[in-house]
């Protein structure tokens, strides 16, 4: 008998249909993976089970949890269930905790509320739970506040809150998407252990097929609010019976075709970074004292040949983005020099930097945040044009924007639209159009595809590869995702604690990592092939 049973669940919000005839079940001790791209209804399914839907939502069908009809339950009944028998872990550990309460209070809160335990008792149980999720007393007393913890540690606190009362069902909605691969592996291990320990059912929601394959016994694949395919994980993914399943699996392993290497090693490097260091001053606890500073980037040297595509990989907080900002001359190094096309760019004024800016552009991670919401596409894409020596006329500018849009696969009629009228993938295309409009020699891309769905990601990677072939643009790809690095780069630099610890040809480094940091990244990275193979083996 299953713990959670969803039958014929349909959901509308206002007049918009969100879910259609969803069928799903989770048995005790089972991990059910719910996979789909953004907007497929994964989160809404989870919120229906928790009855945390927006007011305008209307659900029909049957949702039974442990014999209780969820859709007919009163708010009081739901309050008793939530946090007690059903726990939930959210994606964003930065916002899922209350910043003004200590972690001890936040874990104990639910215990006291549901069990009417005394404060001391509840704190005792909270302490045990925090120990269990890997936050031992000595280093993490209960009086810590969320801002004193890192992202991975906060996610452990969130899990502690969700699991404090030994729920029968845990719903984890993209629990590791905001974390880097090494932390992701740790959190997934923790979840797996908790499931095994208390025979808890786990509904794991993710867009990442590899993560789900590693974790889930059975998977359900959603698309546009409908179940495409459901069944045993290993069988579903190895047979790839349904075309959409095949499409998803292929997109997540997609490697763009790249005919040949551009440029050669012997030529003059396009970008040369020599002994660059960046220190941030420490906090000043009093007027006369200053805490020791933080060295974000430590004596980094690298060079990029024209037309080459280089990946800079590392865990979050390792200094990748700081280094990128210095290369883009948005931040000044404490020491060391950066030269671009043979000219030093460190210490130059904004006016002197103009010629360099023409040949150096940037693509950011967040396709939502990187456009001014109040301007039209034509103006936004044309923004870098003002560094040109000769100011283009209005007609020329129009022509150039149209051309750039065409190159990234958008229509030139899109020029009169505002950024919010585009989807995430289209916005990332806009971002690329903006970057290539001045015909740069180097594009620095900071996690350019990590906010995108797998199928969109495959398309954007194709676009990057195509532009590299066609225009000979060199790339510096900053990423924590090794599949991206493997898909599109020739060389890889591994960064750890501000230093570059390993460098070499992409395939060599990723297949045979030498340094500790690189090994950790490679082993932690979820890999669909490997995960399916392991699943098959387990089942014999």
């Amino acid at each position: 008998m299953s713990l959670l049973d969803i039958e014929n669940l349909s959901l509308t919000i206002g007049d918009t249909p969100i879910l259609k005839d969803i069928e799903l079940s989770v048995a005790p001790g089972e991990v059910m993976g719910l996979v789909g791209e953004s907007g497929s209804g994964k989160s809404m399914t989870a919120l229906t089970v928790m009855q945390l839907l927006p007011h305008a939502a209307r659900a029909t069908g049957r949702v039974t949890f442990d014999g209780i009809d969820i859709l007919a339950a009163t708010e009081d009944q739901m309050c008793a269930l939530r946090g007690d028998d059903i726990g939930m872990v959210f994606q964003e550990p930065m916002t899922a905790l209350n910043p003004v309460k200590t972690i001890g209070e936040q874990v104990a809160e639910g215990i006291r509320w549901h069990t009417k335990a005394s404060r001391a008792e509840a704190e005792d149980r909270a302490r045990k739970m925090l120990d269990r999720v890997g936050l031992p007393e000595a280093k993490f007393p209960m009086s810590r506040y969320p801002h004193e913890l890192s992202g991975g540690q906060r996610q452990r606190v969130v899990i502690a809150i969700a699991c404090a009362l030994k729920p029968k069902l845990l719903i984890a909605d993209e629990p590791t998407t905001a974390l880097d691969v090494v932390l992701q592996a740790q959190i997934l291990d923790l979840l797996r252990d908790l499931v095994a320990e208390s025979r808890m059912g786990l509904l794991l929601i993710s867009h990442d097929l590899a993560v789900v394959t590693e974790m889930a016994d059975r998977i359900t694949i959603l698309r546009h609010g409908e179940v495409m395919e459901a069944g045993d994980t290993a069988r579903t993914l190895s047979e790839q019976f349904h075309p959409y399943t095949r499409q998803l699996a292929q997109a997540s392993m997609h490697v763009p075709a790249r005919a040949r290497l551009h440029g050669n090693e012997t030529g003059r490097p396009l970008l040369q970074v020599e002994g660059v260091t960046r220190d941030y001053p420490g906090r000043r606890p009093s007027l006369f004292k200053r805490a020791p500073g933080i060295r974000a980037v430590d004596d980094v040297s690298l060079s990029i040949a024209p037309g080459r595509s280089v990946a800079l990989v590392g865990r979050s907080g390792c200094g990748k983005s700081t280094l990128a900002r210095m290369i883009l001359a948005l931040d000044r190094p404490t020491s060391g020099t950066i030269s671009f096309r043979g000219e030093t760019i460190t210490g130059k004024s904004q006016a002197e930097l103009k010629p360099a800016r023409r040949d150096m552009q940037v693509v950011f991670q967040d396709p939502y945040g990187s456009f001014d919401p109040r301007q039209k596409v034509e103006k936004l894409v044309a923004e870098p044009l003002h560094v040109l020596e000769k100011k283009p006329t209005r007609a020329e500018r129009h022509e150039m924007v149209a051309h750039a849009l065409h190159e990234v696969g958008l229509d030139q009629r899109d020029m009169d639209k505002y950024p919010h009228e585009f989807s995430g993938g289209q916005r990332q295309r806009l971002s690329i159009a903006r970057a290539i409009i001045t015909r740069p020699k180097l594009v620095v891309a900071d996690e350019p595809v990590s906010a995108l769905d797998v199928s969109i990601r495959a398309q954007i990677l194709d676009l990057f590869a195509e532009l590299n072939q066609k225009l000979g643009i060199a790339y510096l790809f900053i990423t924590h995702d090794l599949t991206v690095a493997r898909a599109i780069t020739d060389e890889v630099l591994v960064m750890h604690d501000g230093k570059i610890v390993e460098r070499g040809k992409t395939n060599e480094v990723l297949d045979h990592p030498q340094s500790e940091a690189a090994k950790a990244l490679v082993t932690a990275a979820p890999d669909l092939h490997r995960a399916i193979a392991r699943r098959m083996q387990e089942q014999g």
Partner: protein
Amino acid sequence: MTLHIDIPEETLSSILAKAFRNTAFVAGFVITLLILAMAIVSYAWTPYDVTKLVISDKTQAPSLAHWFGTDHFGRDILSMVMVGARNSIAVALVAVGIGMGVGVPLGAFAAARGGLVDEALMRLNDLVFAFPALLSAIMITAIFGPGAVNAIIAIGIFNIPVFARVARAGALAIWPREFILAARAAGKSSTQISIEHVLPNIATLLLVQGTIQFALGILAEAGLSYLGLGAQPPMPSWGRMLFDAQTRMVVAPWMAIFPGMAIVVAVLGLNLLGDGIADILDPKSRRQR
């Protein structure tokens, strides 16, 4: 959980449709429009000439001939309230203009530069803020002599730090956004970025603050002219009328009631308008609707 409930940026027509469902906005808008209309009509026509003294008609109670009654010189109060409106509006409007014109660039500049410049500008701001506005306005008009122009300058100066603060706070929230970084990477100077990206994004904030300061300006002008430091007789002004009514409160209460009501209604209308605009344009309140 990727619950990107994307709030679409509205088109003008949908904003207008929403505006007319917002009671505060509609009420504020109608009242403000009425006061403005009254001021404009007073240029072309008033029921009676406000400069003409008709002693035989003095301190008459409201009647069909004089809707709001007459004052101790026999002038028609309705006419005086109408002419007074144009004075109040002119002073408050120009004062808001001064405050915005100087304060917003200052605030935007402080936010763009940061560090010592920001610190120095904001402390200077605090210094101006620390003086009670009306008291200092009295000081300024006392030194440079009473009159509408000096009242405008005095009120205007005290609007500067308000707008500087609002602009700086708004701009500070915009600066760390990624699209600003993108603009910097495109080589735009901080002045260009402030004008092209920061100002349009804080415009609604400033608009709301503008209506509030406008209301406060009307109050301040009434205060100054009550003390005899604003517009000089025979030019009627709401504050001056209240002052004249003070000693005759018992015999001729209408002399105080009507200019007093004019001030209350104007301030209320502008505040409602500001609230309404903030409600309509604030994405947080939008989500709840």
